[in-house]
């Protein structure tokens, strides 16, 4: 298993050219993410969270600043194949069954594995995600929550050093979301992967993470970093703790106060 890197983001800025002029998606972001930790970024829609993940996955080049993995600046070729990705949409291949979908990442990023090894690994992940017996089902035969589980298995199966998750549970109903949050924690504990998770759900951020960065609306800046102290394993009861509610209130206050300011600035 590959060791998770210490991620440092230094003075990162990203701007796009659009028809109406230059859009600053991210403005001078600096963050440190400990190896193997669960790090969540909370912010309003359009604060550049997704842009940050695209830079981390090497798909997008920043216009300023840099990202270091273990002190080495990442470039496209180095980071590719080391980073898993889960999106809001499951983005499964409709022509592949669950098992073959999970195997996709290994086919591309782990060419050294034999087909039999890939299949064994994929079955292993589907099993711990509670999808045993559904290996041969096609995506359209699975519920939304099951599709997203397959998508998480696909991202974890090739043992990435970093797992990027872009609002992976936003499209699911409340009950499914809570189940999957707990399941994700269970899956993550079996890996040494660093998770960088994006959400606009405050309870979700608090339940899952060790650290939270609260971001402002566009151009995205880090308003505050918060350590989340609740002991693991976190479950149903964690949501009921009084400290949980207090912390959620604090984050909500941060987001509430900053949003109108950013809106008038545009």
């Amino acid at each position: 298993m590959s060791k998770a890197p210490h991620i440092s983001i230094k003075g990162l800025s990203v701007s796009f050219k659009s028809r109406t002029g230059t859009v600053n998606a991210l403005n001078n972001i600096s963050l440190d993410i400990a190896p193997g930790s669960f790090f969540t970024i909370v912010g309003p829609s359009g604060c550049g969270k997704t842009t940050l993940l695209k830079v981390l996955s090497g798909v997008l080049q920043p216009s300023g600043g840099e990202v270091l993995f273990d002190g080495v600046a990442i470039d496209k070729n180095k980071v590719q194949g080391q980073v898993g990705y889960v999106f809001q949409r499951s983005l499964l291949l409709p022509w592949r069954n669950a098992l073959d979908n999970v195997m996709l990442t290994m086919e591309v990023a782990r060419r050294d594995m034999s087909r039999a090894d890939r299949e064994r690994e994929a079955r292993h992940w589907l099993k711990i995600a509670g999808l045993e017996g559904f290996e041969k089902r096609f995506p359209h035969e699975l519920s939304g929550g099951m599709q997203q589980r397959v998508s998480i298995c696909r991202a974890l199966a090739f043992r990435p050093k970093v797992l990027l998750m872009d609002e992976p549970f936003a499209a699911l109903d409340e009950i499914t979301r809570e189940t999957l949050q707990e399941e994700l924690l269970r899956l993550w504990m079996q890996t040494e992967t660093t998770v960088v998770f994006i959400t606009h759900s405050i309870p979700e951020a608090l339940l899952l993470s060790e650290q939270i960065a609260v971001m402002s609306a566009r151009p995205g800046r880090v308003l505050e970093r918060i350590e989340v102290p609740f002991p693991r394993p976190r479950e149903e009861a964690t949501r009921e703790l009084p400290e949980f509610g207090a912390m959620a209130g604090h984050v909500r206050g941060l987001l509430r106060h900053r949003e109108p300011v950013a809106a008038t600035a545009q």
Partner: protein
Amino acid sequence: MYRVGVTVGQILVFLLFFAIWEGIVDFFHIKPVILPPPSRIAEVMWEQRALLLTNTWPTFVAISLGFIYAVVTGFVIAVGIAYSRIVRELTYPFLVTAQILPKIAFAPLFLIWFGFGLTPKIVIAALIAFFPVVINTAKGLSSVDSELLQYMDSLGASGWEKFTKISLPWAMPYFFAALKISITLAIVGAVVGEFVAAGEGLGYIINASNISLDTELMFAAIVAMSLLGIVLFLVIVAAERLFVNGVEENGGVQATM
């Protein structure tokens, strides 16, 4: 149970069609030279089975070769259109315009250019079967979810891997929708080719029996032609079942013609 009922009903619609046909011919005493009854067509098909079978072969060859040429060139050009902006921008208006042209109208010209026989038939069949393949396949290849391609990039996939693992299977439903249209067009093309420039084939039989007012034989040849068309269509459907997985309910398939 419902499915079985529907299937029986569907067969009954066919039978009803032939029964009404038979009844009308019988009731109004329509002469066989105008409209022979289905029972008589079946008899003629049996009597003339040797003639019909020997003439099915050249038609089958013309359709198949025309279709294969159309599919291969159409696919290659579609890949060019999907992957090269310059190819797309230069060729697309021409292709869309050419698709609208009545290509059948060129058939007599092909007799002058390619002479009598197999070549003009193949050319016409290929020419009209070609456009749906290009346009549909190009549409399929260029409609690939861009997030999916970015996902492949984040895994470090090569261009070839993105093509074979994502774009190609993504475009398959579009491709097969095009093949189903193209095979029927190739049949039309081959028959028209046989009308104007052939001494054998089912199209030639239809044309020759028309001139000699042998309407019964003409209908027999049309039915043989239709059966050949249905068989070829079913071959494509079977290939689609084999190559296109789990996408039936995904929608997204649109046929252009």
